[in-house]
């Protein structure tokens, strides 16, 4: 990067900004560290950390260390085990890096699309990109199969275009992109909408072409956000379980899959523990690299409303092409679920080869009937209510625990830098081992439905913190300083300065927590008592038994899950908190 250009851009920002502050970016950070942070912030640091750390200690570090200390055994360090571990680790890193790269390639332009442009159907399209995040892997496989399989939609329109979706590295990569593009869109997109377009205008008026503007102005400003999003995507791909197991098929094995195999199938807990430790060390390393990279850059942002309608030919082409691509990639496979839930595909075997396609609402009406009088029957409304209650509780809990940590990390002291990578560990730890740790630590408590949102929060917390932290770091300290000097209470400072700027990041964080909970992450951590089933539980129940009716009902439940998600995300995005205003 050309430091001259970099410096001049920042000067442009400061001049066009209201304060006319001439500090360069790096001096700005150092300055804010030494002069602007009120002394009280240092003393309250312990307080900020108290909540998130005690939460992690109780629900993560204690159970995990208990199971690892019980099962970890140096005798498992044989050459054969190490060789297997090396091969598995190599593939895990390889597929995660490749998936992350592909996710960035699709995600970054999409983030620009949603943050900068105004077009018809935008809220729906954006909500659709978030839907895969909470769909069970079996359903994603079914969706792609209905589109690409030999009896799928594509093949019936263009014969000979079918290819098997499951069982290839391609399937793993596509599924990872399908699941995780929303992470980039949300975190980078939220930052991009807060970016002052005047910076780019100024650079352009100084003669920079659009590529140079993007490369020298926009990209450096977005760097902490892109890094945060990349870290999350990488860790998600790195610890991928269902996607690799169900879509990749049996020739592929990641660390998490191998841990599951050793722990649950072979009952070889020492080897599972060794692999779990290796996975934790990798996660810790990646998180430490991240916090080192991100602490060197922070940019102060002020919220702007900067939506434009595509005007030039180039803009129109960009918007249209990307919309089409996203629709094909997200909407088409997803639409096969509601279609399959409403159409019967019964071949009448009396006449050979005659497949009868019939519209039916049977699958939905059957959901309301406990045909077999099963104790474990799941009424659909109750499942939806349970899912939504858990998800709302997860949003509240993860914001309560996430905000203090994100605040501490936004202006990190040495202590914070040590604690920073620890926050990410739940995302990179083996849920199988953690689940076993829960069982030996908390035993019978694990059946309480009240624990479910706490378990979901474990996975949501890293997302919430990473979505909030760069945004908090971007709050111009001079504004808080000014407010404090006018005798505003810390709460008023938060309400009037921090919150309006953090609104978008908070909504992104809330949407993450919400979808993570809806997708039933962490279900493997707990022993379930069937009184409070959720929608994903209902889907699994239908799919665990043969028959067209079960399949149809699973599709109907999946469609309900999709609808609930899309509506909730639209509502979250519409959500305006009092006094948030429209800056």
């Amino acid at each position, binding site marked *: 990067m050309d430091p001259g250009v970099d410096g001049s851009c920042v000067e442009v920002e400061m001049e066009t900004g209201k304060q006319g502050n001439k500090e360069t970016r790096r001096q700005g950070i150092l300055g804010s560290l030494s002069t602007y942070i009120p002394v009280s912030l240092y003393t309250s640091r312990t307080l900020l950390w*108290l*909540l998130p750390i005690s939460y992690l200690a109780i629900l993560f570090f204690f159970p995990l260390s208990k199971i690892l200390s019980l099962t970890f055994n140096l005798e498992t360090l044989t050459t054969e085990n190490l060789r297997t571990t090396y091969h598995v680790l190599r593939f895990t890193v390889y597929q995660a890096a490749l998936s992350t790269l592909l996710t960035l390639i699709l995600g970054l332009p999409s983030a620009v699309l949603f943050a900068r442009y105004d077009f018809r159907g935008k809220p729906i399209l954006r909500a659709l990109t978030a839907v895969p995040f909470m769909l069970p892997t079996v359903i994603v*496989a*079914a969706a792609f*199969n*209905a589109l690409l*399989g*030999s*009896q*799928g939609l594509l093949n019936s329109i263009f014969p000979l275009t079918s290819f*098997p979706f*499951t*069982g290839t590295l391609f399937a793993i990569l596509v599924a990872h992109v399908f699941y995780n593009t929303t992470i980039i869109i949300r975190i980078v997109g939220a930052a991009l909408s807060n970016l002052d377009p005047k910076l780019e205008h100024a650079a352009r008026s100084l003669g920079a072409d659009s590529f140079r503007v993007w490369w020298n102005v926009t990209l450096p400003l977005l760097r902490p956000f892109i890094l945060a999003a990349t870290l999350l995507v990488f860790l998600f791909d790195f610890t991928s379980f269902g996607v690799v197991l*169900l879509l990749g098929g*049996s*020739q592929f094995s990641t660390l998490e899959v191998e841990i599951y*195999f050793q*722990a*649950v*199938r*072979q*009952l070889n807990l020492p080897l599972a523990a060794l692999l779990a430790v290796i996975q934790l060390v990798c996660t810790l390393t990646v998180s430490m690299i991240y916090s080192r990279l991100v602490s060197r850059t922070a940019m102060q942002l002020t919220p702007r409303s900067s939506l434009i309608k595509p005007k030039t030919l180039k803009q129109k082409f960009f918007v249209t092409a990307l919309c089409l691509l996203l629709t094909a990639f997200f909407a088409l496979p997803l639409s096969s679920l509601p279609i*399959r839930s409403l159409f019967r*595909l019964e*071949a*009448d*075997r*009396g006449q*050979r*080869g005659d497949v009868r396609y019939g519209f039916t609402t049977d699958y939905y009406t059957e959901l309301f009937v*406990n045909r*077999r*009088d*099963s*104790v474990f*029957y799941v009424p659909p409304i109750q499942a939806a209510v349970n899912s939504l209650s858990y998800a709302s509780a997860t949003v509240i809990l993860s914001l*309560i625990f996430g905000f203090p940590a994100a605040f501490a990390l936004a202006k990190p002291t040495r202590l914070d830098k040590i604690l920073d990578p620890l926050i990410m560990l739940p995302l990179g730890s083996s849920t199988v081992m953690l689940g*076993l740790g829960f*069982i030996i630590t908390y*035993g*019978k*408590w694990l*059946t*309480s439905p*009240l624990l479910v949102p706490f378990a979901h929060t474990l996975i949501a917390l890293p997302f919430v913190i990473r979505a909030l932290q760069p945004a908090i770091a971007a709050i111009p300290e001079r504004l808080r300083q000014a407010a404090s000097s006018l005798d505003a209470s810390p709460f008023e400072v938060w309400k009037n300065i921090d919150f309006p700027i953090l609104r978008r990041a908070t909504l992104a964080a809330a949407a993450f927590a919400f979808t993570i909970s809806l997708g039933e992450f962490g279900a*493997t951590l707990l022993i*379930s*008592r*069937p009184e409070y089933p959720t929608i994903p539980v209902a889907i*699994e129940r239908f*799919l*665990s*038994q*043969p*028959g*067209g*009716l079960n*399949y*149809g009902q*699973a599709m109907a439940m999946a469609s309900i899950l999709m609808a609930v998600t899309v509506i909730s995300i639209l509502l979250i995005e519409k959500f305006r908190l009092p006094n948030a205003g429209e800056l």
Partner: protein
Amino acid sequence: MKHITLLFSYFLFLFSACSPAPAGPQTLTILTHDSFAVSEEVVRSFEGANNAKIVFLQSGDAGAVLNKAILTRDAPLADLLFGVDNTFLSRALEAAIFESYASAELKNIPEEFKLDTANRALPVDYGDVCINYDKKYFAENNLLVPQSLDDLTKPEYAGLLVMENPATSSTGLAFMLATVARFGDAFTDYWRALKENGVVVVDGWETAYFTNFSASSGRGSQPLVVSYASSPSAEVSPSGESLTASILGPDTCFRQIEFVGILKGTQHRALAEKFIDFMLGKQFQEDMPLQMFVYPVNPSAALPDAFTHYAQTPSQPANLSPDEIAANRDEWIRAWTEVVLK
């Protein structure tokens, strides 16, 4: 600070709310796998007759559940464990998680199911893992349905079979064990041939059946799937004909038997005994087939119509003793993985 206090009180409330309530009817807790199912009426009738409350704890697949039971044997989570099958039985017995109980109902159960002579694990149901085929595919392509394991390696069946990975699925493991029973030590040669003939391996039954199998509603690509002999009873078309059937040739199927046992350290031994008697009795045994697609071990239990019409039982399923399975399972799976997946 107020918020923190509130939160901690919530924590306290949370944990206090979870402690078991002592009053009222006795609670019997049953640890089981996610595919366990039973009808409301059957449970209520036991509860009513015994002034009991039954709580089911579901905790993943059969392997995961057994694992959790072994890990918590010093402070058991439940009074009973249901769902250990013959492929995992020895592991459960070695770990000594069960107390013996010679139920009087055992006299009605055929000897072939009583694999544990010490009655620590009592048989409840069985199912045969068999290959299901898509009737329409074979009719349309004028192809003969394969009749034996050897047939599957013939070129006309290339790429037509989808199966589950024995390392991750109990269904896949059962099918692999059928080939071990049939071919002995040469089973890896068989698998080499099957691999060359394009056998498709997926992780679990759900994917194999609903994504890959051509006769299921998922409309996949393979007309042969490793499933259960009872599955065709769920694929009956409106015209009253099942769309699928099972291959029942000698040694092509493997019998899975599921067991129940009283967990060591239970506080409700008497009630647990009563529930085991109840599980082996006619009412529970007749309820199982349509709930879990399995067969009752009690021969006096009547089968539902769907089973008598569409589900078939193999006359000669492959057989391996639990001890033999326990001693070699890991090695067989490793050898299989080496041949088929590497």
